[in-house]
C-alpha cells in the first residue's frame, strides 16, 4: 500500500472537515468475517425445510438435436420419486426473451426446459423431484430420450455463413445483431498512416467459476399463496421482477433472497431456467424444492464469459503518435441471449473499449454476435474489457517494436492527457479526469522499470527468456441511468436506494438492494453510514440481498455497488442525520447548527452536553412527554442516488515473466498494479479485489479455457480439465493506489471490483511476447497454454531454420 498524501479536495470536503470519527478510508476489519470463519455462514445449500424435496436436471448430451420423445415412466416408478417433469409441464410460463432497443436486434426465445429441440450440451431437458438428491440422480439415469441429431456449426465464423444450420429457425439467421461505431475517417486515415500493425486475436471462453456452485431453494408460502426463492444470485431484485411476471404473482407475494453467496464474478448475475423451474415446482407441489448443482453441471450450464475473435489494425506516424484504429469483432454468443443482459453485452463492450485510454482520432469498430450451440455467454468479471485491452495493448506493443520505441514511452505519448478531459473516444465513451499517465508513471517507478530492462538485456545475453509486459487501461464503472439505458436492456441499473432507520432502542439498520457475494458490502456500507451518522461501524446492521426489503433495486455487478450503494448511503445518512440533530436540539435546548454527532452520541459542539442515540430514539418513539408532537420526526430516511453517467477508473499493470527455453514453463516473476479508484472506502478490501481480479486474469492468460469440439461437446467438464490458478501459480501482487482528482459523486468513489481481470491478461500476454521477441513471435490467443506456446515457439524456430 502506498502512503501518498490524500488530497482533501473533491465534493466531500465538508464531510471530511466535520468532527465525526472517520471510518471511510480505514482498514476496518470485516463485520461478515466472524460468521464466515466459524462455519456459521448460511449459504443456499445450507438451507433446510420440513418436507423439503430435491431436484435434479436431465441435461442434453447433444449440441443440436430434435427431441423425438422422452420416456419418463421408469423414472417415475422409482421409490422416493415425487415426479418427473418435461417442457409440457411448464407450458403455462411465458418464453424468456431479453429484448433490446438496438436496431435489428434479434432476441432468442428460451423455455424453462427444452421443448422440441436442444441447442447446447447441458441444456435442461427434464427435471426429477425426489426425496433426496441420490434418488433424484438415480431417476435421471432411467429417463430415455430419443434424439434426432441436427447439423452443428460450432464456431461463430462458420455459424455466421448463409446456409449454416440454424439454431433458431424463426430468426432465419444465426447473427443476432450487428453494429458499427465510427469516428473520423478510419479508412482514409489508415490508408495514409505511415505505419500499420495488425493481427487476428482470440480470447477463448471462460467459466466465472465461483467456488460455490449455483444453488436454489424455493419455499412456498402456503398461507399467502406466495413464494420465497433463496438463491446464489447477484441480482435478487431483477429476479423478483421477472419471476413476478413469469409466475403471475405480485411482488408482495414473491421474495428473492440471496443469503451468503460464495462468489459470483458474473456467473450468478443472470436469470436461469433452474430458478424458474424450482419456483414453479414448489408452487405446484406445495413443498420446498432444493437444487444444488454439482461442479460439472455448473461448468456446463452457468453463463460463460468472453469468447471473441477480434481482427484489428492500428495506424501511427513516425514518432509513434496513433492515427487510426479499426477492429472487427465476432462474438460467440452461445445458444441464447441471456436475460436481462442480452447477447450484445460482451461483444459490444469489446468494440466500445477498444480505443482504450488513448488519443486516436479515427476509429471504426464493427461487431456481430453469432448464436452457436454452446451455453449462453453472460457477464464475467471485466465484461468485454479483458478482450479489448488484450488486443489494444498488444497492438501498442507491436507498434512500439515496429518503431523501436520503448513500450512505456509509446503509451505515455498517446495517453489522454490531464488537460484533455473529458475526452470522448471513438466509440463514444467519455473519459473523465482519472490518473491515466500518473498510474503508468507510478507503476514504472515503483517496479524500477529501467532496472528491469537492464536485467532483461543481461538475461538475453545469457540466452535466458525474460519479458516485461505493460497494460494500461481505463474502464467505466458506477454507471448511472443515462448510460445504463443505452444498450436498450429491459431493466434500469442506474439507480440505487438506501433506507436507514434508527429504531426505538437507538440501533441503526440500513437497507440496500445491492447483493454482496464477497465484496464486503456489509462492512464498507456500514463504514459509510457510521461515519455520516456518527456511530461506530459495528453498530450499523446492513440489510442487503433481499428483494422483500426494498421496492426496487437490481443487485451487485459491474463495479457499481460502492459508487451507487455508497452514494445512496451518503445522501440518505445525511437526511437522517439532520432529523436526529433537529430532535436533539429540542432535547439539548441548543441551536441545530451547534449540534454534532459522533460515537453514538449527539452533542452540543464544544460543550459536554450530550444525549445518546438511544435517548433520542426513546424521546421520539416512547416517552411522549419528551418532545412537542410536531418535533417527533420518525428517525427514518430513504433516498435514491443516480450518478447519471459513470466514473472513469484507470490502472497500469506490469508483469515480468521468465520462460524456460527447454520446458516452456512460464513463471510470473513480479506483478504490480498502480490504480486510481478515487477515494477508497476500505484499503484492505480494495487490495483484496485487485488481488482476486489479477488472479482471475492470470487464469485467463495462462490456464482457463472452456474448450468445445467441432460437434459442440465440452472437453473441459471438470476442474481436472478446466484448471484455475492456485496459490502456486499466482505471483505475489504489489498494489499502489493513486488519487488524482476525486470524481463528482457524493463519496468521491470509483468502482474497481473488476479491474484486476481487465489488466492482467494483456500485461501477461505482453510480457510473454516480450520474452519471445528475439524469436519474432507474439501472443495473439489467450490462454497461452503450454501447447499454444509450444506451437508458437516451434513455428518461429522452423521459420529461422528455413531462412538459414
Amino acid at each position, binding site marked *: 500500500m502506498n502512503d501518498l498524501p490524500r488530497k482533501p479536495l473533491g465534493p466531500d470536503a465538508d464531510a471530511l472537515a466535520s468532527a465525526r470519527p472517520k471510518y471511510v478510508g480505514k*482498514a476496518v*476489519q*470485516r463485520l*461478515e*468475517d*466472524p460468521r*464466515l*470463519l*466459524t*462455519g*456459521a*455462514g*448460511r*449459504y443456499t*445449500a*445450507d438451507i*433446510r425445510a420440513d418436507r423439503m424435496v430435491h431436484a435434479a436436471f436431465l441435461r442434453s448430451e447433444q449440441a443440436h438435436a430434435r427431441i423425438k420423445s422422452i420416456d419418463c415412466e421408469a423414472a417415475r416408478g422409482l421409490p422416493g420419486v415425487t415426479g418427473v417433469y418435461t417442457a409440457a409441464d411448464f407450458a403455462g410460463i411465458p418464453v424468456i426473451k431479453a429484448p433490446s432497443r438496438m436496431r435489428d436486434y434479434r432476441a432468442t426465445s428460451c423455455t424453462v426446459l427444452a421443448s422440441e429441440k436442444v441447442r447446447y450440451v447441458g441444456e435442461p431437458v427434464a427435471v426429477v423431484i425426489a426425496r433426496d*438428491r*441420490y434418488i433424484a440422480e*438415480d431417476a435421471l439415469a432411467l429417463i430415455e430420450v430419443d434424439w434426432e441429431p441436427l447439423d452443428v456449426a460450432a464456431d461463430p465464423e462458420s455459424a455466421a455463413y448463409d446456409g449454416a444450420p440454424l439454431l433458431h429457425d424463426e430468426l432465419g439467421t444465426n447473427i443476432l445483431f450487428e453494429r458499427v461505431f465510427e469516428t473520423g475517417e478510419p479508412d482514409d486515415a489508415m490508408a495514409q498512416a505511415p505505419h500499420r500493425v495488425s493481427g487476428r486475436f482470440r480470447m477463448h471462453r471462460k467459466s466465472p*467459476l*465461483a*467456488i*460455490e*456452485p449455483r444453488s436454489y431453494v424455493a419455499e412456498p408460502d402456503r398461507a399467502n399463496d406466495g413464494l420465497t426463492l433463496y438463491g446464489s444470485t447477484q441480482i435478487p431484485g431483477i429476479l423478483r421482477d421477472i419471476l413476478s411476471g413469469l409466475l403471475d404473482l405480485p411482488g408482495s407475494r414473491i421474495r428473492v433472497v440471496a443469503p*451468503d*453467496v*460464495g*462468489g459470483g*464474478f458474473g456467473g450468478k448475475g443472470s436469470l436461469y431456467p433452474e430458478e424458474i423451474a424450482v419456483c414453479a415446482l414448489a408452487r405446484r407441489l406445495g413443498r420446498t424444492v432444493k437444487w*444444488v448443482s*454439482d*461442479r*460439472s453441471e455448473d461448468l456446463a450450464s452457468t453463463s460463460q464469459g468472453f469468447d471473441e475473435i477480434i481482427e484489428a489494425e492500428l495506424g501511427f506516424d513516425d514518432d509513434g503518435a496513433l492515427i487510426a484504429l479499426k477492429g472487427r469483432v465476432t462474438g460467440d454468443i452461445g445458444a441464447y441471449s441471456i436475460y436481462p443482459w442480452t447477447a450484445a453485452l460482451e461483444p459490444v463492450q469489446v468494440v466500445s473499449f477498444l480505443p482504450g485510454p488513448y488519443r486516436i482520432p479515427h476509429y471504426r469498430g464493427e461487431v456481430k454476435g453469432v448464436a452457436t450451440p454452446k451455453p449462453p455467454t453472460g457477464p464475467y468479471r471485466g465484461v468485454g474489457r479483458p478482450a479489448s485491452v488484450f488486443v489494444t495493448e498488444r497492438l501498442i506493443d507491436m507498434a512500439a517494436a515496429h518503431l523501436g520505441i520503448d513500450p512505456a514511452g509509446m503509451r505515455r505519448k498517446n495517453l489522454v492527457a490531464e488537460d484533455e478531459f473529458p475526452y470522448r473516444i471513438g466509440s463514444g465513451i467519455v473519459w473523465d479526469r482519472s490518473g491515466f499517465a500518473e498510474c503508468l508513471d507510478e507503476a514504472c517507478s515503483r517496479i524500477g522499470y529501467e532496472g528491469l530492462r537492464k536485467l532483461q538485456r543481461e538475461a538475453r545475453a545469457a540466452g535466458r527468456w525474460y519479458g516485461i509486459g505493460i497494460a494500461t487501461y481505463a474502464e467505466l464503472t458506477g454507471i448511472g441511468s443515462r448510460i445504463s439505458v443505452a444498450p436498450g436492456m429491459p431493466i434500469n441499473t442506474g439507480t440505487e436506494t438506501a433506507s436507514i432507520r434508527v429504531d426505538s432502542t437507538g440501533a441503526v439498520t440500513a437497507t440496500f438492494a445491492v447483493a454482496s*457475494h*464477497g*465484496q*464486503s458490502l456489509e462492512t464498507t456500507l456500514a463504514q459509510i453510514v457510521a461515519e455520516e451518522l456518527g456511530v461506530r461501524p459495528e453498530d450499523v446492521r446492513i440489510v442487503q440481498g433481499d428483494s422483500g426489503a426494498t421496492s426496487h433495486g437490481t443487485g451487485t455487478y459491474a463495479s457499481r455497488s460502492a459508487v451507487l450503494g455508497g452514494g445512496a448511503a451518503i445522501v440518505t445518512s445525511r437526511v437522517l442525520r439532520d432529523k436526529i440533530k433537529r430532535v436533539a436540539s429540542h432535547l439539548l435546548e441548543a441551536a441545530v447548527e451547534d449540534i454534532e454527532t459522533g460515537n453514538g452520541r449527539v452533542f452540543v459542539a464544544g460543550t459536554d452536553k450530550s444525549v445518546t442515540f438511544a435517548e433520542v430514539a426513546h424521546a421520539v418513539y416512547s416517552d411522549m412527554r419528551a418532545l412537542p408532537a410536531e418535533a417527533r420526526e420518525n428517525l427514518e430516511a430513504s433516498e435514491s442516488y443516480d450518478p447519471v453517467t459513470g466514473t472513469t477508473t484507470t490502472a497500469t499493470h506490469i508483469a515480468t515473466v521468465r520462460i524456460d527455453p527447454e520446458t516452456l514453463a512460464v513463471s510470473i516473476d513480479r506483478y504490480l498494479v498502480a490504480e486510481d479508484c478515487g477515494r477508497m472506502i476500505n484499503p*484492505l*478490501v480494495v*487490495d*483484496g479485489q*485487485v*488481488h*482476486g*481480479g*489479477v*488472479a*482471475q486474469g492470470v487464469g485467463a492468460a495462462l490456464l482457463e479455457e472452456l474448450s468445445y469440439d467441432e460437434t459442440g461437446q465440452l472437453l473441459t467438464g*471438470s*476442474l*481436472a480439465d478446466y484448471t*484455475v490458478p*492456485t*496459490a*502456486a501459480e*499466482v505471483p*505475489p*501482487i504489489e498494489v499502489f493506489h493513486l488519487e488524482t482528482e476525486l470524481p463528482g459523486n457524493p463519496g468521491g468513489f470509483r468502482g474497481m471490483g473488476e479491474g*484486476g481481470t481487465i489488466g492482467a491478461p494483456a500485461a501477461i500476454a505482453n510480457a510473454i511476447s516480450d520474452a519471445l521477441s528475439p524469436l519474432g513471435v507474439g501472443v495473439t490467443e489467450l490462454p497461452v497454454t503450454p501447447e499454444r506456446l509450444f506451437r508458437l515457439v516451434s513455428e518461429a524456430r522452423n521459420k529461422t531454420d528455413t531462412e538459414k
Partner: protein
Amino acid sequence: MSTRIDITLTVNGEEIVETVEPRMLLSDFLRDRLGLTGTHVGCEHGVCGACTVRLNGVTARACLTFAAQVDGARIETVEHLGTVASLNRIQQAFRKHHALQCGFCTPGFLMTVQEMLETLPLETDEEIRDALSGNICRCTGYEHIVRAVRELADEREGAAA
C-alpha cells in the same frame, strides 16, 4: 441400495452413532445428517478443497470419502475451531489480513492451514504457496491468505524460540 451400515465415530469431540447407506459421502453426512454445514462442497470431485476436514488428525476431502469408511474415526470440522465470540488464532489472522471474501473456500483453507502449521517448516512464502495449492480460492488471489499464514508461522517460531 437398501443395505445400511452402522457407524460410530467422534465428530468435533462428540460421539456419534448413525446408520448410513454405503454410498453416502462424508460431506453429505456431515452437512445433511449432522447439520454441520460449515464443511462446504465446491466440486465433489476432489479438486477444490472446500470440503477439507481432519480425519484422525490428517486433512482429508470429505467429498471423496464415504461415511461408511469413517467408522471408528475421529473427525474435526471448521465448527471445532473458534466461535463467533472467540475466534481462534488462525481465524483471527485470516480476519486481520482480509484472507477471505465470499468465505465459501474458507473452512477448507482453515483446516489445511491448521495442519500446515503443525507439520511444515514454512520457511519461505513459496513453501506456504505450495502447501496451500490443494485448495482453490476464486476471490482473494491468495495474497492475503499467504500473509495470514506467514504471520502465524512467524508467531509459531517466536513462541518456540
